């Protein structure tokens, strides 16, 4: 009778595992050129603003020169040129001038002016490159936030020399999913990338605050995401381990953002708004646990007295 009861209970666990859907999903965000452009402009502005803190420090300027080179390349100039030849010419020229001026000590004021001018050009490029309906679309805006966060994670991973790809949720350690694990402190091996990651995460936070201000109808989700951003920044500043940062983003931040702003997720190379691939096959996991339980129960049944 007891065995039958246990069997029924285990079958119940298995069945509930099949029905239960966990909020944790592998979120590979779908591509969107408009969101990418908005994110790219924010990333360049962030890098340039950090350049202003390193005037005369050529090693740091070399790093940011490379970073800016990744964000604005010949293809961007070409694409911009199709819409506005002046911006196509001025944006790369101002980036170069900013870097050249920043290599020389005592040019702080000039660098600040360069950055103000560059920010103006970058802001001007957004309505030129992004259609108005997309520019006003909260999904596109929120997607741009996730793109900037992705860069922040990548830079943070590099800064702590992590072997884990922080953007790949499947590489998270599961015990951290609940957020109950102790935070470990990481050693920073690349100070520029570390500073860069915090700059990008802060920029993403500001972007999100702007999005939230325009979407007061999503106040609950906005509050949750805001709290998640605050924790993320605190953990980044506290040099938290990769798993803690991944938990901040993949568990505390992304799912809420996906839900509230209906972010498109990429699945098998296609973009399906609202769909998601279960990251952890929890039903299968429960089945394995159940089988282990049955084996243990049958092996030890005499000892446990049924």
């Amino acid at each position, binding site marked *: 009778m007891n*065995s*039958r009861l*246990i*069997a029924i209970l*285990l*079958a119940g666990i*298995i*069945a509930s*595992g*099949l029905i239960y859907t966990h909020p944790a999903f592998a979120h590979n965000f779908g591509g969107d050129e408009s969101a990418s452009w908005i994110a790219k402009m924010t990333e360049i502005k962030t890098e340039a603003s950090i350049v202003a803190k390193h005037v005369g420090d050529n090693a740091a300027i070399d790093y940011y020169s490379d970073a800016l080179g990744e964000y604005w390349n010949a293809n961007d100039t070409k694409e911009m040129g199709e819409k*506005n*030849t*002046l*911006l196509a010419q*001025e944006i790369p020229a101002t980036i170069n001038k900013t870097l050249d001026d920043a290599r020389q000590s005592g040019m702080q004021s000039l660098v600040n002016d360069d950055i*103000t*001018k560059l*920010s*103006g*050009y970058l*802001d*001007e490029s957004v*309505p*030129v490159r992004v259609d*108005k309906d997309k520019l006003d679309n909260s999904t596109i805006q929120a997607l741009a936030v996730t793109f900037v966060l992705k860069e922040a994670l990548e830079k943070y991973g590099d800064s702590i020399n992590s072997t884990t790809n922080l953007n790949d949720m499947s590489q998270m350690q599961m015990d951290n999913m609940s957020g109950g694990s102790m935070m470990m402190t990481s050693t920073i091996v690349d100070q520029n990338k570390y500073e860069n990651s915090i700059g990008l995460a802060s920029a993403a936070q500001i972007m999100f605050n702007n999005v939230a201000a325009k979407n007061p109808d999503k106040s609950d989700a906005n509050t949750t995401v805001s709290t998640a951003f605050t924790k993320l920044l605190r953990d980044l500043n506290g040099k938290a381990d990769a798993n803690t940062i991944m938990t901040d983003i993949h568990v505390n931040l992304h799912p809420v953002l996906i839900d509230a702003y209906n972010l498109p997720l990429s699945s098998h190379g296609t973009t*399906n708004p609202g*769909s998601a691939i279960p990251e952890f096959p929890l*039903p*299968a996991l429960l*089945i394995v646990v*159940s*089988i282990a339980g*049955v084996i243990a129960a*049958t092996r030890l*049944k005499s000892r446990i007295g049924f």
Partner: protein
Amino acid sequence: MTRINQILIPSVFLLLLATIVFVSPISIKPAEAHITKVFGNYLVQVGWSNEPVYTGLVNGAEVTIKKGSGDSAKPVINALKDVQISVKYGGVTKPLDFLPSSMVDGQYNAPLIPTRVGTYSLVFKGTVEGQAIDTEIVLDDVASVAALNFPSSTGSGSDNSASVGQINSLANQLTNDVEEAKNNADAAAKSVSNVAESFQQVKDTTDKLYLISMTGIGIGIAGIVIAVISINKNKKQN
């Protein structure tokens, strides 16, 4: 002396007249089509992209913002980030979306086709680098495009009836083309909708299959579990 005067005076007069006739067209400047207004340390220049302005022709409102005064004034980049600009005709207004010019720093254009003859103005609300700009600036008057027509479209006689016939024929052809294009567009939209629906159906089916297969696996494993327990129980009884 009198004879000299008789020749000299008309000559001087003619010379003066000639000077006026030949030199004055050069010295007369065209009417300043763009209007500049000063707000604190900022210059706001407005006008039409193409002047003179005629109804029904593609044109645009043009705004240039500079900081400073005179020739030393410098263009303000991203000047309109905190300014809303609307075009006004009579009591009707429409917000305009300005984009930066491809030619000049600090200049912004918003495409516009003026449809009526008369006075249009731009209404500014906002700030440029903290300088408040709340004003209405009148643009050059818009003239009727009829002033450019040649020959006049209001002629008479057999030429007119022939033209009307041609126009009717063209209009019919155009209507047919538009109708055909509309049908094609409808068909294309329907196809796209069908494809999207098919994708959704495939997704739904996949989701259902996943659920069914997992349920099947679960039930199967539950069966195995029950069987193992039963076998063990039987063995124990034997």
